[in-house]
């Protein structure tokens, strides 16, 4: 019988996961964007040679356990407070590369004040923002970013802007702030998109170490479970419905 070790030889490898990604079984649902973004973070940190200097701040939300998957030091913040936590870590240890990893509920609802003020102070941190227009971890409730008409468990007949207000384009808001040097909107549903997103992420991390101010990378993402779709349907739905409202590209790059 051929063993795995006999097949997986360095010369046979066409693809490998970054060393910083450990073997912990991920809790993310099939088709979720988190896994890809995690991998990109690990790759960029590794390629920059910053493994021993990077501190992640995980949120409350689906990515709460991000610290289980990427082998760096982490601090798990209270809901919405990651930018405040990251502010202190970076200011007290300026040689560290510090990022937050937050969802839309965490970043754009309960943590709006922390997000805006960290960006406005121009904290030299990276904010990674997963926008899937829904609360994933708690089971698919309406988020500040939920699209008009979109159904969730707390707007079962679709988001009514008269009742719930409008979907929040928080990145556009952040782009207005003098402290934010780089605000970009990316996605990870195709190989070219992933390639582009990685480049953006690398620039954001480089900005933070160059002391240029706050960089925010929004990932327009899917939530197959919350949206009650297959992964393929989710990607299609995202392209058709999310992208027109949350168009991809740089909102600010100074």
């Amino acid at each position, binding site marked *: 019988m051929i063993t795995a070790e006999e097949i997986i030889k360095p010369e046979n490898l066409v693809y490998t996961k970054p060393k910083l990604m450990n073997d912990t079984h991920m809790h993310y649902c099939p088709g979720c964007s988190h896994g890809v973004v995690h991998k990109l973070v690990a790759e960029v940190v590794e390629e920059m040679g910053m493994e*021993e200097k990077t501190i992640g701040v995980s949120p409350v939300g689906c990515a709460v356990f991000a*610290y289980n998957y990427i082998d760096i*030091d982490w601090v798990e913040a209270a809901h919405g*407070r990651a930018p405040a*936590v990251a502010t202190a*870590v970076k200011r*007290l240890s300026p040689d560290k590369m510090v990022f937050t990893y937050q969802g839309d509920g965490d970043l754009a609802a309960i943590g709006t004040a922390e997000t805006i003020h960290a960006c406005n102070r121009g904290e030299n941190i990276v904010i990674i923002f997963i926008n899937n227009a829904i609360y994933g971890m708690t089971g698919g409730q309406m988020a500040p970013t939920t699209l008009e008409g979109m159904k969730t468990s707390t707007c079962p007949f679709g988001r009514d802007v008269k009742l719930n207000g409008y979907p929040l384009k928080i990145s556009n808001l952040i782009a207005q702030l003098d402290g934010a040097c780089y605000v970009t909107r990316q996605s990870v549903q195709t190989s070219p998109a992933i390639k582009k997103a990685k480049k953006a992420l690398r620039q954001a991390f480089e900005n933070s170490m160059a002391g240029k101010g706050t960089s925010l990378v929004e990932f327009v993402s899917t939530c197959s479970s919350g949206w009650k779709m297959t992964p393929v349907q989710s990607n299609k739905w995202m392209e058709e419905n999310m992208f027109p409202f949350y168009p991809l590209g740089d909102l600010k790059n100074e």
Partner: protein
Amino acid sequence: MSEEIRLMKGNEAIAHAAVRYGVDGYFGYPITPQSEILETLTELRPWETTGMVVLQAESEVAAINMVYGGAGAGKKVMTSSSSPGVSLKQEGISYIAGAELPCLIVNVMRGGPGLGTIQPSQADYFQTTKGGGHGDYRLIALAPSSVQEMVDFVGLGLDLAFKYNNPAIILADGVIGQMMEKVVLPKQQIRRTEEEIRKECPWAITGKTADRKRNVITSLELDPERMEQNNIRFQAKYRTIEENEVRYEELYCEDAEYIAVAFGSSARICLKAVEIAREQGIKLGLLRPITLWPFPTKIIKEYAEKVKGFLSVELNAGQMVEDIRLSVNGRTAVEHYGRMGGIVFSPEEIVEALKEKLIKE
């Protein structure tokens, strides 16, 4: 900077002490009657001398979460506020306790509930000693009754916080914060180096090196059995603190027939009441808890066998009195005298209350 004698407000003293004790970071938000702490720090500009970070946060909520992040990095960090602001911090304090991080919180209490008043009060005793935030946790609570103790307890609070990896709180009030007294400022301590932090706080997020596993600061544990184990560990730590860290002061207690129990500014006013009572031939003593948690239960229990009664004197509706009653456990009379909402009692009032409630002749 060497040792130095100065005249200053309690709030200013906190700020000077923070710099002198080598604090790495202070994160605050203005609120009366403690804004001088942040004001004094920004005037001292310690970032130019010791390298201490001073930051005005966007809210008390952000400030305590900055403390959480800084503490997670193994740094000596602190925040300060007054009652309504400390209520806002409670979520963060619970997280800090749950993640077993050392830090220092200062509450210069004012009258409540709600927005209340800006005048002195001690109505946050329950909040401080019984939890405040969610979950079974304790704060090491120090109650300064002089401006000198505002200085000393910054050092003591941080020492205890780091000794037990637990948040410590200085529970002061508007009187202690706003009054000026003579203080001796300690010699300037040098802030710890990164190397020292790595050694002293191996759990801290100092950047994962090849020689150790990743460090994760969190209070989250979804497996209830493991979460219970965490709680059992916390409780064992709290019992150790109760065993080792009780602090109190006894004044005129030796021959006392009655004992007033009071902390912070109330203890100062009570001491005057003791002087007045003794002039009138009443043998009144004063027991001043310095640590509100751990509470000086044992000594109160001992006195309960000897005295005719205790008078708990607090600027609230009767909070610490419950802990005195638990300690006394029915052995002798326990009464409470308090003023509320920012009114401060006079020494004479306390003597009258003693006569009315306990002596009853």
